[in-house]
C-alpha cells in the first residue's frame, strides 16, 4: 500500500510516499528556517504564507522525483494537529482536495504519532514499548502495547524540553534554533553551575521551567555584577541535569511497565548527549533502544506516511470535513 503523506504543522512543508508503513520511497521537504531566523522563532503568518507558495511545487517535485502518478497512490495521510493552525490548514486542505479529486481515502495522523513512527522507518517497532517524545512542544512518556495505541504515562507540567533548551540558548546569546548549539557547547564545558534538578521525584512527569528560570536569573545577576557567563559551562550544567532526570524516569517506566523496548522521538531526539546516555543505560538494562536518524527527527512527512499506514489498519479514516486542530490529545486515556 502506497501512502502519500503531508506534514505542514510548523515551518516545514514536507510530502512523502511511503510503502506499507516501513519503506520511504521519496520525500520532498521545503524548510523555511532561514526565513524565521531573523525573528528568533517561527512567525505563524509568515509560515502560512510560505506554505501556500510551496504546496503544489512540493507535490509536483515529489511525483516527479518518485516517478509516481497520483493514480498509483492508495491513500493520503496528513498531519491534522497539533501545530500552528494556519500552517496545518494548508496541508489539510491540500490532502482533502487530493482525496476529493481522486476518491482515495484520507487518513488523519497525529503529529506525535508520526514522530514515534519515525522509528518504524528504521526498524519495525516491537511491543510493548515506551516512547520518549521530546520536542519543542512536547515531553511525553508514552506506553504502546500494540500498533497505533498510545497511553501517556507522564508529561511536562510546564515547558517542553526543547522550549527550555531554546530559552537557555537565547539568554546565553546563542543563535536560533538553540537546542543543537547548547548540545554542542555542552561538550566543551564543565559542570560548574549549581542549578536545580528538574522535578526529580517519583512521578513520570517533567518540569523544566524551574531550571530554565534558574539559568535566566543566574545570567541576569552575573551580568548586573559585570561578570561574564561561561557559556560552555552553563550549557553543560543545564544539559547534565535535564538529561539525567529524563533518563532516570524513562528507565523506571520501562521497568514498571515491563517493556523491553525504548524508542526516542521528536526534534530533541537529535540531541547527542541524550542519545548517548539513554543508549548506555539501555545497554546496562538489556533494553532494545532505537532512535531515528537526524532527518527523521525533525518534522518530515515520511514519519507521517508510516504512522498513517497503521492508523488506516486501525480504522482511522476521515471524511472531507477533517479539520486542522492546534491542540489535540491523541492518547487513549
Amino acid at each position, binding site marked *: 500500500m502506497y501512502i502519500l503523506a503531508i506534514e505542514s504543522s510548523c515551518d516545514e512543508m514536507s510530502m512523502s510516499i511511503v510503502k506499507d508503513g516501513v519503506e520511504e520511497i521519496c520525500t520532498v521537504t521545503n524548510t523555511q528556517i532561514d526565513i524565521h531566523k531573523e525573528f528568533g522563532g517561527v*512567525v505563524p503568518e509568515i509560515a502560512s504564507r510560505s506554505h501556500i507558495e510551496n504546496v503544489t511545487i512540493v507535490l509536483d517535485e515529489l511525483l516527479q522525483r518518485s516517478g509516481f502518478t497520483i493514480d498509483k497512490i492508495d491513500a493520503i495521510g496528513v498531519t491534522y494537529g497539533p501545530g500552528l493552525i494556519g500552517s496545518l*490548514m494548508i496541508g489539510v486542505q491540500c490532502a482533502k482536495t487530493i482525496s476529493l479529486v481522486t476518491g482515495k481515502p484520507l487518513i488523519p495522523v497525529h503529529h506525535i504519532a508520526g514522530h514515534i513512527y519515525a522509528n518504524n522507518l528504521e526498524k519495525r517497532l516491537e511491543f510493548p514499548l515506551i516512547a520518549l517524545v521530546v520536542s519543542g512542544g512536547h515531553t511525553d512518556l508514552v506506553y504502546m502495547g500494540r500498533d497505533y495505541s498510545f497511553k501517556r504515562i507522564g508529561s511536562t507540567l510546564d515547558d517542553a524540553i526543547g522550549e527550555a533548551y531554546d530559552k537557555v540558548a537565547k539568554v546565553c546569546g546563542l543563535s536560533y534554533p538553540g537546542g543543537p548549539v547548547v548540545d554542542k557547547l555542552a561538550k566543551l564545558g564543565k559542570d560548574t553551575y549549581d542549578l536545580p534538578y528538574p522535578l526529580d521525584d517519583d512521578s513520570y512527569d517533567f518540569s523544566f521551567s524551574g531550571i530554565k528560570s534558574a539559568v535566566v536569573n543566574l545570567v541576569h545577576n552575573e551580568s548586573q555584577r559585570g561578570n561574564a557567563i561561561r557559556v560552555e559551562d552553563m550549557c553543560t550544567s543545564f544539559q547534565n541535569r535535564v538529561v539525567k532526570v529524563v533518563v532516570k524516569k524513562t528507565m523506571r517506566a520501562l521497568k514498571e511497565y515491563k517493556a523491553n523496548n525504548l524508542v526516542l522521538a521528536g526534534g530533541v531526539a537529535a540531541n547527542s548527549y541524550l542519545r548517548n546516555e539513554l543508549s548506555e543505560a539501555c545497554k546496562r538494562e538489556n533494553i532494545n533502544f532505537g532512535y531515528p536518524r537526524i532527518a527523521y527527527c525533525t518534522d518530515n512527512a515520511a514519519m507521517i506516511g508510516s504512522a498513517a499506514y497503521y492508523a488506516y489498519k486501525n480504522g482511522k479514516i476521515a471524511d472531507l470535513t477533517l479539520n486542522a486542530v492546534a491542540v489535540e490529545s491523541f492518547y487513549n486515556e
Partner: protein
Amino acid sequence: MISLFIDTSLVNVSISLIKDNDVLSLISEDMPNMHSIYATKFVKDALDNAGIDANQVDNIMVVNGPGSFTGVRIGVTIAKTYGFLINKYITPVSSLKSLAISAHKDEIMMSLIPANKSNYYVSIYDKDYNEIVEEQFASRDTVIQLCDKYNPYIVGVDTSVIGKYKINKQKLDIVRIVNYYIDKEKVNYYKILPNYLKLPQALEDKK
C-alpha cells in the same frame, strides 16, 4: 464549458458550478470560522449535485482576496491543488471587484470590505469595472476622502454607513462574476497566491 467557482474569502462560503448562463449547483452558507471544515466538502457536494465528475471541470475560479488571510488561503489551496491534479490553470477573482460586478450599476462604484481595526479593503470602479482607484488597504479617513471625491455607489458585505455615506449590502451574482472573468487571464497553479494587500504584522513592525 464548466466553471468551478470558489469563494472562502469572507464570512460566506460560496461554491458553485456554472455552465454558460446556467447554475448547475450553488452552495452558499454563512459560516464564520468553519471554512476549513466545510469548503472541500461543499466542492464535493456541488459536483455530486450537478452529477459532474471532478475531472470534467474546465475552469477553476477562486476569490484570492483581499479578505480574511486564513479564509483566502483555504480557497486558494483547494483551487491550486485541484488545478494541479486536473492540469488546469486558475482564474484569480477579486473579492472587491466581485461585489461591483454583482451590484452592476451604471455609475461609479466603490467596493468596501472591513479589515482589522477600523481599516478597510477598498477599490473604485467605473461602470465597466475598470479600476479608477486601485485595490488597497486603507484607513476609515482615507475611505471617506475617496467617497467625498467620487461620490460613488458603495457596495459591501453588510448594510452599514461610513461617515455620511451608505454602504449597500450586496449578494454575489456568481453567474455574472463567472461570465466577466471567463476570458480573463489564468495563472499557473504554482503561481496563484492570495492577494493579501497587507504585510504580516511581524514585517510591518520591522519597517
